[in-house]
């Protein structure tokens, strides 16, 4: 159940970014989770509900974007997304390849912020 550790960091990151931008509360957080990152979306959502309590994210929605495993095939000289996680092989020619271009992502992509009393937050970082 390491999703709680992950969720707490999501909340910390989002709250810090909100504060830096002069925001008041965070209404939504979008995270990107690679299919090889060993993080369960449902467990992350449950953990997020616990982690957000008493923070500027108390009312925030969590959006989880699943990132498929993407490999580079040296034979086809092309990248390709895999439907399944394993085997790590080119879906076009079947050749095994460990050259991963995506799939281990664990990142906060963006947040939605509202300023105090409905004021909008200044643009940019």
């Amino acid at each position, binding site marked *: 159940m390491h999703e709680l550790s992950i969720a707490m960091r999501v909340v910390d*990151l989002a709250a810090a970014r909100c504060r830096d931008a002069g925001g008041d509360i965070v209404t*939504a957080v979008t995270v990107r989770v690679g299919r090889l*990152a060993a*993080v369960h979306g449902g467990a992350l959502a449950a953990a997020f509900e616990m982690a957000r309590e008493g923070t500027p994210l108390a009312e925030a929605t969590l959006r989880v974007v699943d990132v498929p495993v993407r490999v580079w095939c040296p034979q086809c000289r092309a990248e390709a997304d895999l439907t399944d996680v394993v*085997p790590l092989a080119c879906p076009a020619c079947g050749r095994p390849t460990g050259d991963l271009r995506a799939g281990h992502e664990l990142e*906060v992509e963006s947040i*939605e912020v509202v300023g105090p009393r409905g004021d909008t937050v200044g643009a940019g970082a």
Partner: protein
Amino acid sequence: MSEPRILEVRTSILKRNDEVAREMREEFRRAGMVVVNLVSSPGSGKTRLLYETLVRLRRAGRRVAAIVGDVETDRDARRLGASGAPVRQIMTHGLCHLEAEMVRRELLAWPSEHVDCLFIENVGNLVCPTSWDLGESLRVALLSVAEGEDKPLKYPGLFNTADVAVITKTDLAEACDFDRAAALDALAAVRPGMPVIETSAKSGAGLDAWITFLEARRP
């Protein structure tokens, strides 16, 4: 109430852990240390393999040390301590993995004598340790012959992050109807080209190859 404004963040969720791990890796590199992170399911033989590894490396004149993570008890530290190597136990009290900061705390509390090879035995878990970089130079995933050849397919994330796989308890292979070819196929499916070393800490089979592999990693 105004419309929410979207702010790009694009930051790794484990940024802080990654930063600590990066700093430690640089310190380890400068100190000429090999740092090995052992990951596997509980009961796959990490402690036994590590014990034999510590004994053999010490016999060869290497200065070795170990940090071992468990949810509770210092039993593994006591087992490993019998090798004569300095060992520290991290009790996570529920946490399912080790984090870089925990390792750094242990290292700060340690007398600062030179170590050639530091082993970190992670909490037995095939999921949670996956994304937590501990600053290691080598991540070793263990797979015992008793736990099923398809384990790597079931837990691809962790096996994919490993630099080398060690098959353990080969002395039990026959009793467990271990299908060696299937295990090698499963490992290749999740990490094409990953070296695989087959060992039995009990009989000693394969331990020379394992030690040779480790020695070759020394700077």
